[in-house]
């Protein structure tokens, strides 16, 4: 690692992104099956055994579609927004540790700040897409998306402060190590960690534009929101970015609040994967259970409940760190 950092970072990225994209693609299959069972229908069955090849078929379809940029759109911003959206989601994984030891692409001492700062850039491609489309639905979606993303950014940052305070480090690896032997921040100290964990998950849903906070898309009121004018692979990139964002947020939650690779028996990647994917499946469950909040409702939820409560968790965590 220390000898060839470029090779290590790049190679890690190549393997990790391939795996994550595979997981995200097949999680769409899983979600459709899951949603199907919840609604008493079979889900995809036609392509391959139990519809397992559906993601491949979808990918082929998306990649073959004609790529149209509307004449009225700002073509540069319009075309740069989808890859930028995916990049802001993927870039944050550069500091994420996967197993004890050196299994991290870049072991930055400000790791969590790096992830948060790259993650908060996600507002920009979304807004870019909505504005550049020159479409009223897209603009409405983008306006609401920007308002939502910057609002939920505040409680998201504050909840991330709880593990930072309790572990006394910005390094992702240190935060996980501080929870060794079952001292997960979601459980111990009692209170602030658990509340912050729930808030973190909800804010991540809002940042990833998932139900119950999928305001930017809101297909029943805004046609398809920011993705109205996008087709083929450009739409596919937005779709993929949304799933990747949710997946990555689940793993971040698992590392920051649920002890990462710590678990009964030998520690390792298997515990992290188990926790991350469980949270991920939980988010699907939320998606197919709850309705979308109205634009004014989520603003009220964020500024009147999430912000003061997350400040409270930070206060309690700080007192715990100093006096306990």
């Amino acid at each position: 690692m220390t000898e060839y950092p470029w090779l290590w970072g790049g190679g890690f990225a190549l393997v990790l992104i391939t795996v994550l994209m595979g997981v995200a693609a097949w999680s769409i299959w899983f979600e459709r099956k899951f949603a199907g069972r919840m609604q008493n229908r079979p889900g995809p069955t036609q392509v391959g055994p139990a519809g397992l090849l559906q993601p491949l078929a979808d990918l082929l379809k998306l990649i073959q579609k004609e790529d149209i940029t509307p004449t009225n759109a700002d073509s540069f911003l319009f075309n740069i927004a989808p890859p930028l959206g995916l990049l802001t989601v993927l870039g944050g994984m550069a500091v994420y540790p996967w197993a004890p030891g050196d299994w991290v692409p870049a072991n930055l001492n400000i790791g969590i700040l790096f992830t948060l700062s790259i993650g908060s850039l996600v507002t920009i491609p979304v807004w870019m897409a909505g504005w550049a489309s020159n479409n009223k639905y897209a603009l409405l979606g983008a306006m609401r998306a920007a308002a939502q993303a910057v609002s939920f950014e505040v409680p998201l940052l504050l909840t991330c402060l709880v593990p930072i305070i309790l572990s006394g480090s910005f390094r992702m690896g240190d935060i996980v190590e501080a929870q060794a032997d079952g001292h997960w921040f979601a459980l111990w100290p009692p209170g602030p960690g658990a509340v912050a964990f729930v808030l973190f998950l909800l804010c991540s849903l809002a940042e990833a534009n998932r139900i119950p906070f999928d305001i930017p898309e809101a297909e029943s009121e805004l046609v398809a929101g920011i993705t109205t004018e996008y087709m083929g692979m450009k739409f596919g990139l937005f779709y993929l970015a949304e799933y990747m964002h949710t997946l990555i947020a689940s793993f971040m939650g698992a590392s920051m609040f649920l002890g990462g690779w710590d678990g009964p028996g030998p520690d390792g990647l298997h515990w992290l994967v188990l926790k991350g994917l469980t949270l991920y499946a939980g988010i699907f469950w939320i998606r197919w259970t709850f309705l979308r909040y109205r634009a004014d409702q989520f603003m009220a939820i964020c500024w009147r409940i999430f912000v003061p409560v997350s400040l409270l968790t930070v206060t309690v965590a700080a007192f715990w760190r100093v006096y306990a």
Partner: protein
Amino acid sequence: MSPQWSAALAFVLVAAVVAVGTLMAARVFGVKARSKPPSRDLTYECGEEPEGSAWVRFHPRYYVVALMFVVFDVETAFILPWALNLGPRGGGLLLVEMGLFVGVLLLGWGYAVRKGALTWQ
């Protein structure tokens, strides 16, 4: 550049290549229409021809939200280094200092709530 930052940069670069490469693949494999009626490339507006441009002035309530965001985001930027220095030794003073800072901010937050800046009307 330290090796850790080189690795992080390499990671981000590969991510960028993957993101752009997917689009390039779609460019190569995508079908191209032989005939292009002029209405085809218009923006979507329920099948009608779009009425004017969508680049218009917008409701100012979004400005208030952005303002609130800047206030609280800068606050978080101040809290971050503070959080790192918290500890059993000398932590009490730090708590008092941050309590004063956040207290002032919460007063502002309360004022914004009373003024209705956080309700969408």
